[in-house]
């Protein structure tokens, strides 16, 4: 009995990862042209934007908030990044774009905290505003530049050697400092995963620079949220704002910070996407789809709207799962209708499963094992 439920909860907790694995295996076997390095690299690259977005998005979820403006923020900041590039160069324009993202996040945070508006509502408002500003700034047209060198570097380039050394050193330092306990699964994973990653990175062309950058952003996010005292505060605030307040954690500050981080990652995502393609579209559907996919991915990753729970890594797997799905459907040559249907189906199954377990849990809450044993003998 107990063991069974343990396995189920283990599956449930790692469902995004399992889905990724299952989908990959399935596609490798059945989907034409799926299983090759080039395609895997494509999937990883295409997951980058949403992966970066979902770093901040997950944090906002952990805080028991939601930010519907991420898509619009990503689009607007990407537009800004491209629009300013001719005058400022990539570096400066990226900084400006990220600053704009942070400002949008700050606005969201202040509206939620100070005006006490539910974030679902407040960010619908922000989304509308950004949509207007986006249109104004772009004049309804795409912004682009003719220099593709950066985009090319992001997709196919190589990092300079010093960068590679720094990153590997950081990974090694982290692993050594965290003193993994080899007896536990977690400990083994802490050793194996970075090793596999480093080997793959150095020996194959699987990880483009943009993927590495995404990994770095995700790692920084995971490090802050899961491994620092400051980051743990997000969970406390989301889990129970009162606990946080009593423990001297400034809940308002955390919520505002959460939104700012969310704005920053959204703008980073948009900017990096814009850099990759040297352009940014003015079609708003870009923002809408980014929001919806990120939302579904984060939920499938196991983060809950009720707050206090969530993992950036699992969100990443959620994003990855969707990209594999899209790619697979493309490989089969199926239409978008199938894609959106499966998208909805997976989300529905996950949401329903979650609701159903809660429902069961509520129904059986307080059931006593010794009485259950008795009941079994009664029924026999």
């Amino acid at each position, binding site marked *: 009995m107990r063991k069974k439920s343990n396995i189920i909860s283990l599956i449930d907790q790692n469902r995004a990862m399992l889905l990724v694995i299952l989908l990959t295996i399935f596609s490798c076997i059945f989907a034409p042209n799926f299983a090759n390095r080039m395609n895997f690299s494509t999937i990883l690259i295409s997951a980058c934007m949403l992966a970066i977005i979902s770093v901040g998005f997950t944090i906002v979820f952990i805080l028991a908030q939601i930010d519907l403006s991420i898509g619009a923020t990503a689009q607007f900041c990407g537009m800004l990044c491209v629009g300013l590039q001719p005058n400022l160069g990539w570096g400066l324009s990226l900084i400006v774009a990220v600053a704009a993202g942070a400002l949008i996040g700050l606005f969201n945070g202040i*509206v939620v905290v100070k*005006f*006490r*508006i*539910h974030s*679902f*509502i*407040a960010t*619908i*408002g*922000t*989304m*509308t*505003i*950004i*949509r*207007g*500003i986006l*249109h*104004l700034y772009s004049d*309804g047209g795409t912004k682009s530049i003719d220099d593709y060198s950066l985009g090319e570097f992001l997709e196919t380039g190589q990092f300079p050697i010093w960068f590679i050394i720094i990153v590997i050193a950081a990974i090694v330092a982290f692993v050594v400092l965290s003193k993994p306990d080899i007896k536990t699964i977690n400990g083994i994973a802490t050793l194996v995963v970075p090793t596999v990653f480093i080997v793959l990175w150095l020996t194959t062309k699987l990880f483009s620079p943009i993927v590495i950058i995404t990994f770095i952003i995700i790692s920084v996010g995971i490090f802050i949220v899961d491994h620092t005292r400051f980051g743990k505060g997000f969970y406390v605030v989301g889990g129970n704002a009162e606990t946080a307040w009593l423990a001297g954690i400034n809940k308002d500050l955390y919520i505002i910070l959460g939104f700012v981080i969310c704005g920053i990652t959204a703008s980073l995502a948009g900017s990096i996407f814009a850099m990759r393609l040297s352009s940014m579209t003015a079609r708003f559907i870009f923002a809408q789809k980014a929001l*919806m996919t990120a*939302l*579904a991915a984060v*939920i499938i990753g196991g983060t809950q*709207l009720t707050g206090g729970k969530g993992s950036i890594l699992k969100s990443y797997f959620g994003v990855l799962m969707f990209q594999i799905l899209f790619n697979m459907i493309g490989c089969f040559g199926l*239409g*978008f*209708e*199938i*894609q*959106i*249907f*499966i*998208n*909805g*189906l997976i*989300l*529905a199954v996950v*949401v*329903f499963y*979650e*609701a*159903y377990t*809660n*429902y069961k849990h509520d129904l059986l809450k307080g059931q006593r094992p010794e009485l259950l044993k008795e009941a079994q003998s009664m029924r026999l």
Partner: protein
Amino acid sequence: MPAKDNTALSGSRFSNVDNKSGISKLFDKAGVYVIALCLVILGIIVSPTKFLTPDNLLNILRAVGMLGITACGLSFVIYSSQMADMSVPSAMAFSGIITVQFLHLGFVPAIILGIIFGMLIGLVNGIVVGYFRANAILWTLAMQFGMEGIMRYVWSGNQLYPDLEPGTSGAAFVNIFRLEVFGIPFLIIVMIVLYIIADIIMKKTKFGNQLKLVGSAIDAAKCTGINVRKTVLYAFLISSFTASIAGIFITSMNKLGVYYLGEGYDFKSVTAIVIGGMALSGGRGNIWGVLGGVLVMGLLNNILTFIGIPTAVQNVFIGLVFIAVVALHTYKLRKVGKDYA
């Protein structure tokens, strides 16, 4: 009785929180209509001769008629503290497509079928959200994706045209939107009637009164002998019912059914409802406020176009007004010591 003076004593320690002055009570009651009135005055200032003409006012109403209808039903969902129904667009498109598809059976059967099929979506939502307490936003979003996929697949992304020959049910169907009764568009009459019915349901029926309790505290409602699941189910059914009606209107207006009709009506309706003073936390606000919210959105759009502000800037304005109005509502709630929206 020994305890008697004690009660009286502690009674004196409470000043009556409910004692409000007349003006603030009026604002409490009128709520969003104060804002609507301000907009009307602004409109008169902007265009003294043209704004207050019956034609223009009818235009405003006509433009927000369908929004008004979806918001009317969706407010039941929000009132029951279920946040939102993101599947409104698919219910709209679905009912429209089904109606057009079945027009050959005759006008009335087709409409009925359209509404029934649209309400199927609400039924599923209601069962999953009401009975299993799934998160409403996420579930209805999944539903929206799924239905969109199904509609695209079944009708291979095509537009469905009704037969427009005069005298056919197709012509009658297309005429629904264009119908006028005593110079007032049928759409507006339907909308007003729906609001009156909704008001009666909310205030005068067992369901409506229990809905308020469910929205206020769902666990307490369960322990008060209210069938919470059924109540939430009904709320979603009502939402899909009005969405289906709006879907029939929008299909009739466009003279064709296609899967993307109704896009955007999810957020738009939520916006109108929240402007109207209904709180996401449930059990707050009333249906006339929602109508007010709908009118404010129509007026705002109209006046901004009058001033000559392009759509892009209008978005900025609407967003800002939206946040400001909601902030005002929550401020009001907080001032009387209630928790926020």
